[in-house]
């Protein structure tokens, strides 16, 4: 007799497991669905219990039978109320219009629950099976009718403003519930209200609440945060810095004014990063601004340049030197208290290519680090695209050089005999295959 109730419970318990173990955004909609899942599970347990007790009228005491029946129908009205609430929030999210029927819905819920526990209850015994009846049955009938009408009203009133997929989800759920209720009404002994509720929950789970959708929402949220971060207007930043610089100079603080000028230069140059290829001179200008600021912060840090002036106009991928030098500082010279030298040199090689060397006197590679980095740079194509992390800078440089200049060019590292490491950037003289 209890086969269907047990099956429904197991299905929804499984759905609840999947749902609660998946990460999701904390929105009113998802919170409502979580509550709904829990209440539906409780309701299904009560459903099973009442189906058992109503068929054992002679063995189960009348008072116990009354109590579980009232609890069962009380939870059913609560479930239907939660469905209404869920759909109302969904419609609100879609249309942007605030919910207006929350209070009538809650008052109705209170009245229905009150009626449910006070109205007299009786039992019908038939050849096909037993069922409860009497005035208290007004509660489930009235509740289902009231909330389903509210839902249908919401759907019809906002049909133009709701996304097609969500409209279908709501419509299907309502249709299922109406069908099941009609069948139940025609066949009192079928006792299939639990099935209707389970199917309704499932239809929302499958269309709007499944883990794929939850994950997509989370990713979208993360991406939009990153996007926002990258959208902080750089012009605002450097215009403000420039105002501060002028104030400093007006106050006679030439040193601060000069530093701010370099900082403004750095931002201005890095904002130009919308171009794929830039002249080596531009790249060096950005690097100089960066290094001057770093050298000011760490007075024992030195930077030397040895650039073949003929190479100044050569096109190189944008923003490749600063990440390499930053890497040298953070992983090499930082360990020596920023005491040491970074030497940047650019020269023509015998086979008519350009080699840029970034040589530091830092602490060198840690045990095993060299081979790990070699391996990473060698298998650059297989490395997943990372948004953050340790070697993101140099991996990114490697990928862009290979992409923009060709596979025969790129980045590699060697250890200096006197300590520290040297980054070798091999680049074409004609800008490579992308112009």
């Amino acid at each position, binding site marked *: 007799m209890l086969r269907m109730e047990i099956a429904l419970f197991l299905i929804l318990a499984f759905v609840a497991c999947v749902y609660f173990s998946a990460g999701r955004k904390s929105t009113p909609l998802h919170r409502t669905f979580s509550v709904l899942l829990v209440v539906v599970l409780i309701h299904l347990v009560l459903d099973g219990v009442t189906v058992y007790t109503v068929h054992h009228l002679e063995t189960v005491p009348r008072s116990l039978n009354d109590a579980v029946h009232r609890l069962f129908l009380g939870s059913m009205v609560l479930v239907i109320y939660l469905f209404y609430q869920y759909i109302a929030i969904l419609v609100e999210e879609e249309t942007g219009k605030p919910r207006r029927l929350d209070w009538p819905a809650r008052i109705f819920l209170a009245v229905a629950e009150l009626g449910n526990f006070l109205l007299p209850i009786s039992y019908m015994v038939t050849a096909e099976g037993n069922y409860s009846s009497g005035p208290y049955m007004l509660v489930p009938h009235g509740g289902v009718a009231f909330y389903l009408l509210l839902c249908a009203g919401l759907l019809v009133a906002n049909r133009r403003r709701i996304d097609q997929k969500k409209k279908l989800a709501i419509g299907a759920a309502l249709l299922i519930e109406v069908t099941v209720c009609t069948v139940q009404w025609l066949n009192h002994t079928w006792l299939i209200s639990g099935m209707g509720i389970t199917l309704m929950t499932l239809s929302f789970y499958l269309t709007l609440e499944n883990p794929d959708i939850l994950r997509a929402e989370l990713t979208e949220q993360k991406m939009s945060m990153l996007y926002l971060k990258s959208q902080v207007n750089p*012009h605002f930043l450097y215009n403000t810095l*420039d*105002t501060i610089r002028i104030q400093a*100079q*007006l106050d006679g603080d030439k040193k601060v004014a000069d530093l701010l*000028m370099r900082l403004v*230069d750095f931002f201005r140059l890095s904002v130009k990063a919308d171009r794929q290829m830039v002249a080596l001179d531009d790249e060096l200008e950005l690097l100089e601004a960066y290094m001057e600021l770093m050298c000011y912060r760490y007075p024992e840090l030195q930077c030397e340049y040895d650039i073949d002036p003929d190479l*100044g*106009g050569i096109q190189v991928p944008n923003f490749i030197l600063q990440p390499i030098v930053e890497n040298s500082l953070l992983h090499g010279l930082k360990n020596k208290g920023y005491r040491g030298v970074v030497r940047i040199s650019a020269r023509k090689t015998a086979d008519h290519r350009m080699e840029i060397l970034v040589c530091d006197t830092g602490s060198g590679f840690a045990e095993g680090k060299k081979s790990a980095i070699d391996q990473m740079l060698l298998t650059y194509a297989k490395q997943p695209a990372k948004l953050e992390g340790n070697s993101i800078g140099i991996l990114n440089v490697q990928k862009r050089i290979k992409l923009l200049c060709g596979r025969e060019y790129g980045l590699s590292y060697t250890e200096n005999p006197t300590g520290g490491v040297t980054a070798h950037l091999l680049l074409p003289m004609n800008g490579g295959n992308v112009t």
Partner: protein
Amino acid sequence: MKKLRVVLVDDEIMIREGFKRLFDWQAHDCEVVGEAADGMEALAQIDALRPDIVIMDINIPIMNGLKVIQLSRMKHPDTAFVIVSGYDDFSYCREALRLQITDYILKPVNYEEFGTCIDNLKISLFERRVSVEAEQAQQEERAITGITRYLQQHLAEDMSLTVLAEVFHLSPQYISQLFKNEIGVGFLAYLTNIRMETAKKLLLATSLSIAEVAEQSGYGDYRVFTKVFKKAEGITPSQYRRDFLEETGKTGA
């Protein structure tokens, strides 16, 4: 030489203060006679004060700087306009060049180097005077006109006050003074300016290599040329050429 009268237009008071107090106007024979914070005020100030030079921010309230220039140009054809622009409205600068703006500088303004800009203005004011004089076919040619024409013609050669002194049978000191008095800038500043102007023309109008352009504009060593050019224009010669070609490519000109 009479003092040049300057009007500053920028909506940020700090930028105007910076211009006013951090640049030595006195030493460059200029004085700031007025300020404006928006387009309407700028128009009124230019009409009332008839300045020689207007330092103009583009992105100002009510009416943008280019519109102000367009409207003032007709009434005050002799006023020189210097556009000051952030990189965010760099595209306006191209338009500014088409509007025959005398000069433009980019924010952040380096006040120490702003003198070069004023020198350039003085030279262009001088050249305009010379061409007006030539049109009116005035009596006798002045010494400075001869010297500057000689410089234009012998740009590619080694040039110095001593060379000029020999050619014109005048003392180097006298010629130096002549430049200061007649144009308002030193001999070297003038020479660099006309060399740069020539270089820019060559870069855009010919396909000569950078080294050849350097040589024709009087720089034997093209690395020196690149350095001087970068200091004057803010970008390298090859970038200058590329930027311009890109721009004309875009507009379909």
